[in-house]
């Protein structure tokens, strides 16, 4: 590494520190409520509600039928109970399944957007007005359930790239959506996937044509804003042969007393020789210091790699009261590669059960898993991961590393690795460590003039470095900030 690069990073660190200072004392800074008229459904779920959502979204018939099938299947399923998380039973009839800011029609420019809405984005630090001018990030901003504004569309269209709200894609590219919707995560997959398929109201659709390298990071911000409204997002990313795309997903939610349900589905398809990098920074409202409130986050994320394709999942999970999430990769084609880099932070009474599945089907498939769990307060943090080597997967290799760091005496860290090997000509390695943040490390940094809070942040960020270096720069900054925020006051 050149000196110049390291200095650049150091500069960055200095900026981050200002941010951290600025954000000190904020319990959940983004816990405000925007006063916008909302179009809401009554609470509860029924075939009628499913059909009403479908109607409001102007679904074609096949989509309506798909939703109804998914709903009927969901009725036959039971909530999964195997994760190491505890929460009161969710009353699915006490949830509102659709809410959207009342807007008349599709807007041509940002000037037409409700200024109240724009203000919300500004508070969240999403400089949408400056996006076009200043940054190289196209933003598809999702406010509650309806997409407000999509930027950079034209630039992307020139290359034949589709990056649009799912509802638009269903209208404009029905054949593509029909081909891939539910192809990786069918509604029969699990309880929450079925629920999502029935009531999803919005999401993003990305298609990168053959041989095209997407020239910018594609980014979507999600936000829950309506009382008791579940958010059911659906994201589909298709990279055609030899294509490349980096997709960023980040979330914040306002402070609420009632638990809010979030059950998203993400489907990735990497065709021959294609590469998808999918990065997430998740900071849904985690509940207060006593564990009251907070988002329940039940997510199904999965990708399929065809020959020589590569999918990298990178996630930084700091939010939610409950996190239930296992971004997975099916290595179907020979020589395909799957990667999973994860940082999961839990504090107070948060519970996270997260990890990945790497399913090796093709020959010479490779997967890497690096998971860093940080537990503070009374929280529980579990890594749950499956590595499966199919019988035809000659020469398959996996390396897994799961490290846990404990910040208090009352928190828990757990590792549940599942390994299924049906091919003798394969190599699977698993390493795991658990450590407690050491007083000697903190004193060493104190003795060099660094406060305990900054010392903890520095040590924890160092612990997560292998994962953070996989994140795009803007996200790495946000991740560092989030980590400091969510661990504030947890040591000393």
């Amino acid at each position: 590494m050149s000196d110049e690069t390291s200095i650049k990073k150091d500069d960055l660190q200095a900026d981050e520190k200002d941010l951290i200072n600025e954000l000190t004392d904020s319990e959940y800074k983004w816990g405000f409520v925007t006063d916008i008229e909302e179009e809401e459904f009554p609470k509860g779920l029924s075939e009628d509600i499913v059909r009403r959502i479908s109607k409001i979204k102007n679904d074609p018939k096949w989509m309506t039928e798909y939703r109804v099938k998914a709903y009927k299947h969901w009725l036959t399923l039971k909530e999964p109970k195997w994760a190491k998380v505890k929460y009161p039973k969710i009353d699915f009839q006490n949830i509102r399944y659709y809410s959207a800011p009342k807007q008349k029609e599709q807007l041509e420019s940002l000037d037409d957007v409700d200024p109240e809405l724009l203000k919300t984005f500004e508070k969240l630090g999403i400089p949408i007005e400056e996006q076009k001018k200043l940054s190289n990030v196209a933003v598809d901003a999702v406010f509650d359930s309806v997409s407000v504004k999509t930027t950079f569309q034209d630039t992307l269209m020139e290359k034949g790239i589709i990056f649009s709200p799912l509802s638009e894609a269903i209208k404009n590219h029905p054949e593509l959506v029909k081909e891939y919707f539910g192809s990786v995560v069918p509604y029969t997959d699990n309880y929450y996937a079925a629920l999502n398929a029935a009531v999803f109201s919005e999401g993003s659709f990305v298609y990168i044509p053959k041989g095209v390298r997407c020239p910018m990071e594609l980014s979507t911000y999600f936000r829950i804003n309506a009382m008791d409204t579940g958010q059911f997002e659906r994201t589909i990313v298709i990279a055609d042969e030899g294509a490349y795309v980096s997709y960023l997903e980040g979330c914040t939610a306002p402070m609420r007393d009632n638990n809010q349900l979030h059950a998203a589905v993400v489907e990735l398809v990497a065709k021959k020789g294609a590469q998808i990098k999918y990065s997430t920074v998740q900071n849904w409202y985690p509940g207060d210091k006593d564990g009251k409130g907070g988002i329940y986050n039940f997510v199904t994320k999965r990708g399929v790699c065809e020959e020589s394709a590569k999918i990298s999942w990178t996630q930084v999970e700091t939010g939610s009261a409950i996190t239930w999430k296992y971004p997975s990769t099916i290595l179907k084609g020979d020589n395909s590669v799957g990667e999973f880099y994860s940082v999961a932070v839990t504090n107070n009474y948060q519970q996270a059960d997260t990890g990945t599945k790497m399913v090796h089907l093709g020959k010479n498939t490779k997967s890497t898993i690096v998971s860093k769990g940080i537990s503070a307060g009374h929280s529980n943090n579990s890594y749950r991961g499956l590595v499966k080597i199919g019988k035809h997967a000659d020469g398959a290799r996996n390396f897994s590393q799961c490290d846990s760091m404990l910040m208090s005496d009352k928190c828990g860290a757990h590792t549940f690795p599942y390994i299924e090997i049906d091919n003798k000509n394969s190599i699977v390695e698993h390493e795991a460590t658990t450590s407690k943040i050491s007083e000697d490390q903190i004193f060493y940094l104190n003795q060099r003039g660094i406060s305990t809070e900054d010392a903890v942040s520095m040590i924890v960020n160092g612990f997560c470095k292998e994962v953070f270096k996989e994140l795009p720069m803007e996200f790495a900054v946000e991740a560092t900030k989030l980590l400091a925020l969510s661990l504030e006051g947890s040591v000393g």
Partner: protein
Amino acid sequence: MISIKNLKAKIDGKEILQGINLEVNAGEVHAIMGPNGSGKSTLANVLTGHEKYEPTGGEVIFNGKNLLDLSPEDRAREGLFLGFQYPVEIPGVSNATFLQTAINEIHKYNNEAELTPKEFLDRMKEKAKVVGMDNSLISRSVNTGFSGGEKKKNEIFQLLMLNPKLAILDETDSGLDIDALRVVSNGVNEFRNENNAVILVTHYQRLLDYIVPDFIHVIYQGEIIKSGGKELALELEAKGYDWITNGEA
């Protein structure tokens, strides 16, 4: 610079320091010697504020401030530096990031401007040369995977980078071969000037061949039982500590 009066301290309920008196002025180097378990390292840790060590009496005035009232980080920001006997590893945090944060925190506390990246880089290159550290060592994580000698060199590198008013070097010579000892000593001599001071905590006389002290103090059972000039070291080397501890002197 620092005035220690009748300092008493305990660790795990056990009284280790029984009343230490020591005056160190700018421009001076003091060596603290003594047999194992006499309280040398305890003194270093109490002065820098390690929470396991509890001061139970006396006072310490540093730069006109009551040192024992300050947090460990504020003591460091006031210009107190400890060269650790066992430097700690911090995986994933580069030496450069760590030092830049430290320097900026110290500057901020003293209402001085932060170093520009260029100034920081220049200083880093200059100081690394003094202790013979190459760039790869600097960009690596703090002390992670360093050999014993590299860790001690890194302490002296930090000393030069932070340029404190008072450096307490706790057994900086332990575990060093003769070449490394020379490098480390050069670094300390480079640091010395009429505005700062050094307290060397050491077992052995050999360090004092390279870093010549102005005063030598022998600590025993938590008290300074003998003080003298640099010639005292030779006497100790020849006669051992028994000569003093048995009260024959």
